């Protein structure tokens, strides 16, 4: 009997597809973020507010995943940017192949920024790499501040936590600082922004994060808003 060392990550089919997507995004300089959060935490609302703030000339697109309906795509399409719905017909997450299929016919050379809204779920999407540059976890203030401790996987893997619906803070017994401390206990380096898609509070912080995170790429998208303009 001999024992030989074996190296490398355990790659399943998804990871192979995700690696191919990542190479494609990088070849075309597309900055991709994967938004993950529980059902109703405000993923579509944040994207709506974000698209609304963009100049129409920006080369931005959205893929939005749900188990059923194209309701979210219909909401997002109102801003004039290309939007496609992915319906998973039961699956609780998007996988890399669904993303690849949904991109069919889009010329990535014409895109600088791609938002992927995952299926509302704090668990399953965590394990499926979509070739994105960053996972972003959304936590709304009505969900409870212990969520990072209960669902550590996504808080560990996300580079940014967006605390959403902060306009509701006066009405719910949610301690924002405790929620942030919990997230940092799981992932000390996680960045955090607090936003409200209803009032627009914190949007500059979110847009600033997007701009900084994509700074390494030669992206041309410009973020509207005072003191928030990226060099073209």
């Amino acid at each position, binding site marked *: *009997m001999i024992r030989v060392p074996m*190296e490398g990550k355990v790659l*399943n089919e998804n990871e192979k597809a995700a690696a191919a997507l990542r190479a494609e995004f990088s070849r075309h300089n597309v900055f991709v973020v994967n938004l993950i959060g529980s059902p109703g935490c405000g993923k579509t609302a944040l994207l709506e507010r974000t698209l609304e703030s963009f100049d129409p000339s920006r080369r931005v697109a959205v893929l939005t995943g749900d188990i059923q309906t194209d309701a979210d795509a219909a909401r997002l399409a109102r801003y004039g940017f290309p939007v496609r719905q992915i319906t998973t017909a039961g699956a609780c997450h998007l996988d890399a192949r669904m993303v690849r299929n949904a991109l069919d016919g889009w010329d990535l050379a014409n895109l600088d920024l791609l938002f992927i809204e995952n299926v509302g779920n704090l668990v399953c999407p965590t394990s*499926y790499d979509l070739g994105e540059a960053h996972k972003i976890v959304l936590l709304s203030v009505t969900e409870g501040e212990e969520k990072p401790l209960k669902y550590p996987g996504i808080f560990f*893997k996300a580079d940014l936590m967006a605390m959403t619906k902060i306009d509701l803070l006066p009405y719910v017994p949610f301690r924002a600082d405790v929620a942030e401390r919990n997230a940092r206990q799981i992932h000390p380096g996680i960045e955090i922004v607090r936003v409200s898609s209803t009032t627009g509070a914190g949007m500059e912080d979110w847009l600033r994060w997007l701009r900084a995170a994509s700074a390494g790429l030669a992206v041309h998208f410009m973020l509207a808003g005072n003191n928030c303009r990226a060099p073209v």
Partner: protein
Amino acid sequence: MHEVGIAAGILDAVRKETAMRPAARAVKVGVRIGEMAGIDPESLAFCFEALVKGSDLEPLALEIHRAPADELEFVFLELEEP
């Protein structure tokens, strides 16, 4: 839920590894799985067993080592050589 895919990925890699040593038979494969990897070791062991059963790799065993972060990687392969 996605442990089946992970188990299939392990078997693929073992096949690739043994293809280079046609005379040897794979006996046991070791993997390291982090607490944050989103993989349930028991469920992985269950899926692994189900996939191995009746396959060309039967009776391959799986040894799981735990780790603190999101590791999901191979450690070793044990081979029986004629």
